[in-house]
């Protein structure tokens, strides 16, 4: 540049003019900010009896709340088992489902749930540094243990996702058996994807089950638009087709159906002697009654069939007993 005095003066001046011209909003006078203190003034510096306020904190509440979740889940499974196998009460199971929908759905806002816990457990299996909370392990295992002993009680009376679909099922249509079985494979694909999105190398685990949980947006009254639309679509479908998410998509339902194959006890349509009248098969919206018997992998313990069983009517109302076929 120029070697005379005016040149060395004009260059920074030019820079300032350009900077001001480039940002008209900052053309007005600005603060030259410097921090006035090097250390925080304490109460004695401030004077006038000033008391330093305590830092805003909230006490930790989650510990007992999460232990409460496990206790509520265990209690709900026990009550559900009693209602489905002993008391044989559809009304009781619906009330239980509403209660669990209120607690696990709307109060706990869909977290924690065993369906999503599949991916946490997978992560804990694969990554040694992944610390899984005991509560999540318990929430994951309790319904599975219950399935080994008594079948899919969790699906029928406890799961909030199941409950919300159960309550809207007003006009059940029968799904053809072939289609039912074929769509049922989707849940295994979903389970595989869920595991893959945890174990895939070179990426953070993506909890897709939680991310694409179709109904959690309703529990929270907010959510991504596409998920809310997916949930609304599934609910509309669920008015006619019994529990589409549970039967065709839910990966945890897959695990439960697998374990309920060997369950110790299970839902039986009749309270005592098995009839071959076939009245129950019409009542089941989930295609779970094959050859006039409830199949444990598909039975969601909703107890609709009980009301259609002549023996059940006898037992609960003391009416005339039809002869039991041997």
């Amino acid at each position: 540049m120029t070697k005379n005095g005016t040149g060395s003066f004009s260059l920074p001046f030019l820079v300032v003019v350009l900077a001001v011209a480039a940002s008209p909003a900052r053309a007005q006078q600005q603060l030259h900010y410097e921090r006035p203190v090097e250390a925080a003034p304490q109460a004695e510096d401030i004077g006038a009896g000033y008391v330093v306020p305590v830092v805003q904190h909230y006490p930790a509440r989650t510990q007992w709340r999460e232990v409460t979740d496990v206790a509520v889940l265990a209690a709900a499974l026990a009550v559900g088992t009693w209602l489905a196998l002993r008391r044989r009460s559809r009304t009781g199971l619906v009330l239980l489902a509403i209660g669990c929908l209120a607690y696990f759905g709307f109060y706990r806002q869909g977290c924690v749930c065993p369906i999503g816990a599949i991916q946490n457990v997978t992560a804990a299996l694969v990554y040694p540094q992944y610390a899984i909370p005991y509560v999540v392990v318990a929430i994951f295992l309790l319904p599975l243990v219950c399935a080994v002993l008594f079948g899919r009680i969790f699906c029928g009376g406890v799961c909030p996702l199941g409950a919300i679909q159960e309550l809207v099922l007003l006009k059940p249509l029968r799904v053809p058996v072939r289609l039912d079985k074929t769509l049922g494979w989707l849940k295994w694909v979903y389970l595989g994807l869920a595991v893959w999105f945890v174990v895939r190398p070179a990426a953070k685990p993506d909890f897709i089950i939680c991310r694409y949980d179709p109904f959690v947006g309703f529990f929270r009254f907010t959510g991504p638009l596409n998920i809310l639309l997916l949930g609304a679509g599934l609910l509309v479908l669920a008015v006619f087709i019994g529990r589409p998410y549970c039967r065709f998509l839910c990966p945890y339902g897959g695990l439960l159906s697998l374990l309920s194959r060997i369950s110790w006890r299970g839902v039986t349509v009749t309270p005592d002697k098995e009839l071959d009248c076939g009245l129950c098969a019409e009542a089941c919206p989930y295609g779970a009654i094959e050859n006039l018997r409830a199949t444990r992998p598909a039975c969601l313990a909703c107890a609709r069939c009980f009301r259609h069983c002549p023996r059940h009517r006898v037992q609960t109302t003391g009416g005339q007993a039809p002869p039991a076929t041997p």
Partner: protein
Amino acid sequence: MSEQPTRRDVLGHAARGAALLGLGGLGAYVARKGGLAGPWQIDAGLCINTRLGLVGLDACQLCATSCVLPLSAVRAVNDHAKCGRCYICPAYFDVKSALDEHGLPSGKLCPRDAIIRKPIGDIDPRDPANNYYEYVIDETRCNGCGLCVLACKEPAGLTSLRLEVRYNLCTNCNRCSIAQACPKNAYERRPARTT
């Protein structure tokens, strides 16, 4: 006289026993490095907004925008023991805005006006620049965007502000969407703070 167990019964019992043992083993194996359920917390040493040495960045703001709740469960917290109680707080005022008639910046940094400023101690009304000021976060307004936290860092501030997760608001999601979004993995589950 009890019925003889059939082969089917025996196999069923064996399968159930094996399944229960398997589930128990899975639980024990998985839980060996587990812990009591810690709530989500922000590691101030990793968070872009609070970590020292990172200056000249824009505030991350993902804590405010990623949470599934309508108003995020994250809040800014002022540690009053560390606060400089400045006349012109760089976290309260937008120090880049034009000055008003009192010589103070006309703009506030917080987009939700969630910081409350009040003079404290021996107040000299003729010399406001030499008074001390207390800055309290209004938790009903704050959404944890972290603009103020970033502004209160060296060399401008004394790092008295930080971001915290509010246990009473956080739903403790299994898949915390803030943790998923956090670019520095600063958002993690840890044992609850007891103080």
